[in-house]
C-alpha cells in the first residue's frame, strides 16, 4: 500500500514538473475540436457529438497512457523491480493513469461544451459511465503499454494492440451516452449499461494484476 502511494506521488511529481501530458494533450484536444467546429459548424446533432467526444478522448488517452511504461528506462525498471512488488507497480500506474485520464476527460468535456454545446444528458447515467469508462480505458491501455514496451517498435504496436482492447469499452460507452439522451430512462437499463462497464473494468484490472508480474521480470 505504501509503495503504491509513493509511486503514484512520484508520477504526479514528474508530471507537474514536465507538464508534458496535460499541456500537450489539452492542446491536441482543443485544436481537434476547433478543426471540427470549423468543418461542420457549431450545431451538430447528438450522435455526432457523442462519437466525436469519445473518439477524441480515446486518442488523447492513447497519447497520455502510451508513455507510461515507455518512459521508464531499463535501469529504472530494475530499480523499481528491487524496490516494490510488481502488483503495486501496475496498480500505481493504473491509478495514476486513471486520475490523469479523468482530469483530461473533464477538461476536454469543458472544452467540448464551450465549443460544441452540451446535449441534454441524463447526468445520473452519463457521469458514472464517464468515470468507469475513463478508468477502464486507462487500465486497459496501461496493460497494453506494458506489453508494447517489451517489444521493439512500440508506437505502432501500441495502436495495433490497443485498438481491439478498447473497442468493447468504447461501444458500451457510446451506448450508455446514447441511452442517457433519452428523456425517461428506465432504471433497469441504467443498471444494465453501468454494470456492463463495471464488469469490463473489473476483468481488465484483475487480469492486469494477475498477468503483469510475468511481463515485469526479465
Amino acid at each position, binding site marked *: 500500500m505504501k509503495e503504491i502511494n509513493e509511486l503514484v506521488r512520484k508520477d504526479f511529481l514528474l508530471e507537474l514538473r514536465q507538464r508534458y501530458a496535460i499541456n500537450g494533450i489539452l492542446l491536441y484536444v482543443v485544436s481537434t475540436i476547433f478543426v471540427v467546429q470549423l468543418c461542420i459548424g457549431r450545431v451538430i446533432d447528438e450522435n455526432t457529438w457523442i462519437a466525436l467526444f469519445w473518439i477524441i478522448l480515446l486518442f488523447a488517452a492513447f497519447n497520455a497512457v502510451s508513455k507510461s511504461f515507455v518512459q521508464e528506462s531499463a535501469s529504472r525498471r530494475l530499480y523499481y523491480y528491487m524496490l516494490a512488488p510488481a502488483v503495486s507497480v501496475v496498480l500505481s500506474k493504473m491509478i495514476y493513469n486513471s486520475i490523469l485520464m479523468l482530469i483530461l476527460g473533464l477538461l476536454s468535456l469543458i472544452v467540448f461544451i464551450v465549443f460544441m454545446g452540451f446535449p441534454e444528458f441524463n447526468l445520473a447515467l452519463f457521469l458514472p459511465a464517464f468515470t468507469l469508462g475513463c478508468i477502464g480505458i486507462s487500465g486497459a491501455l496501461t496493460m497494453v503499454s506494458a506489453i508494447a514496451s*517489451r517489444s521493439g517498435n512500440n508506437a505502432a504496436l501500441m495502436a495495433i494492440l490497443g485498438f481491439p*482492447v478498447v473497442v*468493447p469499452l468504447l461501444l458500451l460507452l457510446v451506448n450508455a451516452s446514447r441511452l442517457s439522451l433519452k428523456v425517461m430512462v428506465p432504471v433497469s437499463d441504467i443498471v444494465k449499461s453501468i454494470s456492463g462497464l463495471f464488469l469490463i473494468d473489473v476483468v481488465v484490472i484483475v487480469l492486469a494484476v494477475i498477468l503483469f508480474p510475468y*511481463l515485469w521480470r526479465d
Partner: protein
Amino acid sequence: MIKGLWWKLTGLGLILYSIVAGQMIEVPELPVIHETIRNLFYHVCMWFAMFTMFGTSLVYSIKYLTGNKPKNDIMASESVYNGIFFGILGLITGMIWAKFTWGDFWTNDPQLNGAAVSMMAYLAYAVLRSSIDEKAMRARVSAVYNIFAFMLLVIFLGVLPRLADSSLHPGKGGNSSTMQGLDLTMRLVFYPAVIGWIIVAFWVLQIRARKRRLLQNVN
C-alpha cells in the same frame, strides 16, 4: 505408420458425411433463408473450430506461464494461427451467406463487428510475436496478450451480441433462435459436422506443431 490414424480418419469421415448429407437431406422451409440454411453445416462449424483452437491456445498460454516450457509456446502460437485460419474461413462463408439472405456482404451487425474486431486482436497477436526477437520474452509477452485476446473474444462473441438491441443473427438480441427451429434430421447432420471439423482442426494443429518442432531441431 501414422499415429492416431483412427481419430483422424473419423474426423475426415464425419465431415465427408456432413458435406454429402448436408446437400441431400430435406430442410424445413423457412422464410428468407430458404435453402441457404444448408450453409449452417459449413459456416457455423468454422466458428466452432475457431473457438476450440483459441481455447486450446489459451490453455497452452496458461501452461506456458506456469511452466516456461518452449513446447507449450509452440502449441499456443500454432493454435492461434490455426484459429485465425478457421476464423477467416468462417468470415468468408458468413459473408457469402449474408449476401444471399440479407442482401449484402457486410451488415452492421454486432456479431459481425465483434467477429471482425476479435480477429483483429488475434492478428495483432501475430504482429506482436514477430516484433520481439528474444525467444523467452516473446513467448511470455505473447502468452500474456493471448489471455487478453481470449477475454476479448468472449466479450465480443458471447456477451455484447446478447446485450445488443437488435441483431440479424439468430438467437441474439431478441431474434428467434434457429437452434429451436432445427429439426431432427438437421441435428443429425449438424452435430457430426461440428465434431468432425473440430477433430480436423486438431489434426492440422498437430501437423503444424510437429513441423515447427522439426524446424527447431534442424536449427
